[in-house]
């Protein structure tokens, strides 16, 4: 899994409208009218075939340092990879590697490279480029986020050329789903002196206007052909407009200035669906998940009562049962979400444990459970065995309407079982400071987005020793028996190449999370997108990028 911190940031970005930019993006009042008009005018000028918006300026164009959504999008469109995970079928599709063979029980993969592929400068793509790409990726001085997946504590990954058209990648121990690790590893030219250099993707960066737009032009040397033998990509250029304001983005879509929108908010989706039903697309549940957790860290500056409540499994389960997930989906997400039973979304068909069901909404059962754990209701207030009224604060990030609504609904639901919740919205840096450093909070409502499908994506969160273990970060040793069991199962599945065994282990992990409720999983939002009728060939995927994952095949007739 990518850094938890990054996911949190993405979570915020995705649902709040660009993370620390949320204050800007949410406040259309702060954008001077003249500026808006200028942006719109700029949008009208130019003549790109396909246009859509990035929701922030890419922090970098170096394909190995991409760590934000916009940089990821540019990398996706401009760089070639050895194996691509198909966003619809979820199969590993051959790209620059036309075939591969997994050896040594999943510890080694031999990739046979496609011949005749050339870089835009005319140089042939060979195994030397692959080796060079991995050397750069794994350079410790670079701190490439994608490199984390290739680092193990058992030794270094060995990359060796097997002639000009084959490469072997060998890990010190078997790796589950080894062929799925190459989706984000861009292939660069050996000897490239500067980054980014034009890559092997369908498009090349032709022009960049910081804060305004990035123009991509068709890569004339692109190797891929359509099923009828015609060259790809089908559009000559793509203009990516930097547009942080999602309302303005929708306005421009309605005016026909952009053709695609990824990650629409439920409100904007409903608005669009009312006006242009054909343009609004709900692609079903994403792998994203919204959840809340209680701070169980012994290092947290919490009072004794709250520390005891949060450590009580009965308390956590009762809170989980008292939250009406169906209402959260229906009201906060306007029906474009599904109740969560655990961290894995039903859209992740291979790893989702269908035997684990979301807790039924039952305040009566929650109260009984609390009473059996020593709590009692007194004049509508829940009190613990010492008579202390149960009250806690729930922090979440400011600027995300859906999350603020969820917090208000949770507050009302828990009031029914006598628990007083103080909802506190914080700016994102303050929130991160509290949940990762000072640990000065009681409960937190947040979400993760763009989660990979494989269970190893959860290692960084579920292992008790992980610094991103949300409810009790960086435990020296598992503090509970069930955490020890999760550790054992997660390590076992990561070391195995047997999918059936891995599934069994990960199913059990999902059951433990459901039984112990260290994290109260709430819902999985749907992938909501907008597709102009002008754009042909768009197949919206619940996985990112939702709309332009096969950009080379999209067409804008008459452009």
């Amino acid at each position, binding site marked *: 899994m990518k850094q938890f911190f990054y996911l949190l940031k993405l979570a915020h970005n995705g649902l709040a409208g660009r993370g620390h930019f949320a*204050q800007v993006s*949410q*406040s*259309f*009042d702060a954008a001077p009218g003249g500026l808006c008009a200028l942006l719109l005018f700029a949008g009208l000028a130019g003549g790109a075939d396909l246009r859509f918006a990035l929701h922030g300026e890419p922090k970098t164009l170096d394909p190995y340092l991409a760590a934000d959504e916009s940089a990821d999008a540019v990398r996706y469109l401009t760089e070639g990879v050895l194996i691509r995970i198909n966003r619809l079928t979820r199969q590993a599709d051959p790209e620059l590697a036309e075939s591969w063979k997994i050896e040594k029980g999943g510890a080694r993969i031999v990739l046979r490279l496609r011949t005749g592929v050339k870089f835009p400068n005319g140089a042939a793509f060979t195994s030397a480029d692959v080796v060079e790409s991995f050397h750069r990726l794994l350079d410790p001085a670079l701190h490439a986020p994608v490199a984390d997946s290739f680092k193990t504590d058992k030794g270094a990954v060995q990359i060796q050329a097997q002639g000009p058209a084959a490469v072997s990648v060998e890990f010190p121990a078997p790796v589950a789903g080894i062929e799925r690790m190459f989706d984000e590893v861009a292939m660069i030219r050996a000897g490239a002196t500067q980054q980014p250099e034009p890559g092997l993707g369908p498009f090349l960066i032709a022009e960049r206007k910081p804060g305004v737009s990035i123009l991509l032009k068709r890569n004339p040397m692109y190797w891929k052909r359509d099923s009828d033998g015609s060259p790809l990509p089908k559009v000559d250029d793509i203009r990516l407009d930097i547009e942080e304001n999602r*309302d303005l983005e929708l*306005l421009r879509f309605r005016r026909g200035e952009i053709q695609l929108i990824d990650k629409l908010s439920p*409100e*904007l989706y409903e*608005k669009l669906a009312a006006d242009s039903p054909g343009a609004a697309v709900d692609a079903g549940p994403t792998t994203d998940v919204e959840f809340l957790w209680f701070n169980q860290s012994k290092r947290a500056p919490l009072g004794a009562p709250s520390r005891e409540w949060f450590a009580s499994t009965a308390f956590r389960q009762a809170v989980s049962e008292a939250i009406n997930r169906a*209402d959260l989906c*229906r*009201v*906060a997400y306007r029906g474009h979400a599904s109740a969560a039973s655990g961290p894995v979304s039903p859209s992740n068909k291979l790893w989702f444990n269908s035997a684990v069901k979301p807790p039924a909404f039952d305040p009566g059962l929650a109260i009984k459970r609390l009473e059996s754990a020593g709590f009692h209701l007194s004049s509508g207030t829940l009190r613990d065995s010492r008579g202390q009224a149960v*009250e*806690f*604060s729930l*922090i979440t990030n*400011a*600027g*995300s*309407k859906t999350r*603020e*609504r969820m*917090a*208000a*609904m949770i*507050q*009302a639901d828990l009031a029914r079982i006598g628990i007083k919740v*103080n*909802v*506190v*919205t*914080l*700016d994102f840096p*303050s929130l991160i*400071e509290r949940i990762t450093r000072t640990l*000065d*909070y*009681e409960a937190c409502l947040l979400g993760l987005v763009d989660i990979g499908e494989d269970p190893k994506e959860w290692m960084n969160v579920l292992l008790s020793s992980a610094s991103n273990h949300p409810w009790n970060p960086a435990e020296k040793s598992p503090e509970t028996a069930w955490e020890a069991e999760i550790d054992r199962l997660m390590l076992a599945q990561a070391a195995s190449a047997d999918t059936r065994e891995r599934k069994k282990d990960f199913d059990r992990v999902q059951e433990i999370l459901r039984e112990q409720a260290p994290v109260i999983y709430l819902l999985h939002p749907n992938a909501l997108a907008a597709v102009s009728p002008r754009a042909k060939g768009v197949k919206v995927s619940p996985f990112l990028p939702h709309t332009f994952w096969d950009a080379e095949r999209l067409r804008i007739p008459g452009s």
Partner: protein
Amino acid sequence: MKVVRGCALVFLSLVGMAAIAPEWWTRARYDTQFRDRPDAPPSRAFPLGTDALGRDRWARLWYGTRISLTLAPAAALVSCAAAALAGGGAGWMGGFLDGALQTASDLFLSLPWFFLLLMVRAFLPLNAAPLASIALTFALLGALGWAAPARVVCAAVRRIKTSEFFFQAQAAGCRAARVLWRQLLPNVAPVLWAQFWVAVPAYILAEATLGMLGLGIAEPLPSWGGMLRELEGAPSFRQWWLFAPAVLLAAVVTSLQAILSRKEDSV
């Protein structure tokens, strides 16, 4: 103009009376969620419809009015009291104190108060009750807003100190305390009064700005700022009911300005 001011006064009185105890006359509480009726249009049951969580927007408007109209004047009072002490003291004593006040007020006026507010709010205890949190927010607004009125008060005191009636009082042998009480305070009071009325709408708008960013008053308490967030998606004018808090805010601020213009005239 008298008619306009009279109308403004009547309007503000009506708003004030309506906001004193909305629980007596609104049908629902501000936090009751009718989850089967989210985003409902106006009806007999909900004159301004319901919000995204199915809460009665009409009830929330009046509860929010009570909060905004109670705390904004309180914050204005804090800033005017601080301005009277700092500006009055500096103007009266002159010399080093006067210079120090100018420097301090320059510093305060140049501070990015908005970010300061965000920072201070991040340090507040998380379990503060919503009412305590909003009281603190307005107290901070008040505490940060002393600099501009202090300069005005300081200038007024300096002017009074060089006036003939002031010299006459001193020449007649009046003691300092008597001069302060009988000559200075009555002449500074209108200036302070005007500053108070200028500050009230400014603080209402400041809270609205914080609310627009989701950093205003905590759920489930309503405020004008929080309700104005519903306008973020640029709704069409067919949904006129969403504009009610903006209209009320504008009407109250305009009324305050109309009354203020009379106070300024008198100064």
